[in-house]
């Protein structure tokens, strides 16, 4: 691209920068305001920054919610990878009506609206005594995300040359062993990408958490935020402080994996 950007391109970029920059800036600014400042001049840049919102937000309940978020997000990621990795590999290396049916089912399942699955799961978990338990929420989240993870992992396993595995099996390695020590290391980028995405999605999931936990005391951060923002008489600085605290782990994960996300998400579209 040796041409200079035209006025239209600059206009589009300006619009997008405002559209995506302003909300982020606003969360930060508001979280450092006092309630009085928000009500008098909600949109001003000039205000005395206070950390009241953070001090008030930081109590035992918040730490408990943070702990719940960490447990749910890591637990879900581990469970999803444990089941989706072998499934994706199996689908990448077999053919016939069975894998085709499996693929079709996965496409349908990953498109299912979550509001439709939460209704029967509520009843089933009630019968299985999994309501109000963190494990139940992890199971539900994993069921929600496994189809997506499997479909996204499959092309990474397809990209592993089958000759590598044949060499392994000639040397006398079992299927399981070639998978573990040859295929998995080659496809590790895909596993990292998918693992990151699952973590991000599980961190933000709130519908299962709001409905399966019977008291807000066990809510993760996302559910706490969803509960407070749909209540009347919102304490905006407090809410924005909570939003910032919910987003910090996302920022950490994002910073560490941005390149992987940017290129891995579109792996099918590029190659």
């Amino acid at each position, binding site marked *: *691209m040796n041409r200079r950007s035209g006025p239209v391109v600059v206009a589009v970029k300006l619009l997008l920068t405002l559209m995506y920059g302003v909300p982020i800036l606003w969360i930060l600014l508001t979280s450092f305001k006092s309630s009085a400042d928000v009500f008098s001049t*909600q949109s001003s840049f000039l205000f005395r920054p206070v950390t009241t919102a953070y001090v008030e937000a930081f109590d035992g309940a918040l730490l408990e919610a943070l702990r719940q978020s960490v447990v749910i997000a890591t637990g879900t990621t581990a469970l999803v990878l444990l089941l989706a990795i072998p499934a994706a590999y199996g689908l990448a290396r077999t053919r016939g009506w069975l894998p085709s049916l499996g693929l079709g089912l996965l496409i349908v399942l990953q498109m299912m609206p979550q509001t439709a699955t939460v209704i029967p799961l509520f009843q089933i978990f009630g019968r299985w005594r999994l309501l109000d338990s963190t494990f139940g929420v992890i199971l539900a989240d994993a069921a929600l995300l496994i189809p997506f993870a499997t479909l996204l992992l499959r092309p990474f396993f397809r990209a592993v040359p089958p000759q590598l595995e044949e060499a392994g099996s000639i040397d006398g390695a079992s299927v399981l062993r070639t998978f573990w020590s040859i295929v998995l290391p080659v496809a590790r980028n895909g596993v990292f990408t998918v693992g990151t995405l699952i973590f991000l999605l599980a961190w933000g999931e709130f519908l299962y958490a709001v409905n399966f936990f019977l008291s807000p005391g066990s809510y993760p951060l996302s559910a706490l935020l969803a509960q407070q*923002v749909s209540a009347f008489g919102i304490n905006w600085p407090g809410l924005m402080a909570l939003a910032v605290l919910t987003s910090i782990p996302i920022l950490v994960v994002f910073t560490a994996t941005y390149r992987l996300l940017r290129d891995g998400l579109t792996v099918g579209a590029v190659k």
Partner: protein
Amino acid sequence: MTTQSAPVGAAAAAVRTRRTDPAGRTGRRRPRQVRLLFLLPAAIFLGLLSLFPLIQLLRMSVSAVTSATLNQSWDFVGFENFAEGFATGQSTEALQRTLVFVLVVTVLGMVLGLAAAIALRSRGRWSGFLLALMVFVWALPPVVNGSVWKFLLGDAGLINTLLLDSGLRDAPVPFLYDQYWALMSVAFVNSFAVIPFNALVFRAALMNIPPETFEAAALDGANRWQEVRHIMLPAVRPTTLVLLVLTLVYGFRSFDFIYVMTYGGPGTATNTLPFLGYLQAFVRYDFGLGAATSVVTVVGVLVLAVVYARSIRREEAES
């Protein structure tokens, strides 16, 4: 991350790579099929926690189930729940709202996604920063994005303050509590959340165009618009079809921004089909009615899934 924008989307990419088929080419078909066993754990898990719930949903939709009878045996009522939903007009109205909502999300998401991809094609600090910013916002939980927009669109929020101060309006725009504005506002925020993903996918397709093509076009004296029209649009055409279906599905099943920003209100103004089913089950405790509404939603998704599968196949045939 608008929960499922990513999931659904990335899968498109996933399925799209099916070009070469390494399995079965060596002629040693039988030993390879041992790998079907790798599917077993996930199959059992999904059977119990995805397929079984869907069967329960179906059963519930043809039964009278309230919170009191949820854990007892259900009375079979046939299609009464479905009939009730349509007779009271709830389902019909929700269906109309859903269609408007999906239309807005899809048009904005596709057009701005492509515009962003074209604008971000240039290298440089600004483009790099903007792309990272957009992907970061996309990765944020929907509750966070929804909260901020609820704040920005409020009566004394930034947008209304700007409109009032600039003299464009003399009263605040009721973005979130007017019947018509509310649906549009939530649809806008939904597309806001899906644009970064669409831009990433379009961008990947644009990066695939060999630089020589642009050089040749420049030699021929093509202007910018002609570059877009004759080089970029044809290059993204196969991607567009798959992405279009994914964006449709994303809009159709969306509920998180509605939950956070309006909770279906004001009145029933933002009750789209998926959200109506949820409200009927968990707010009015009529699980049978909620299940019936959800079944209608599921049927809609199934139709889109078939369209999706066909568009993938067609794209593969073309490439």
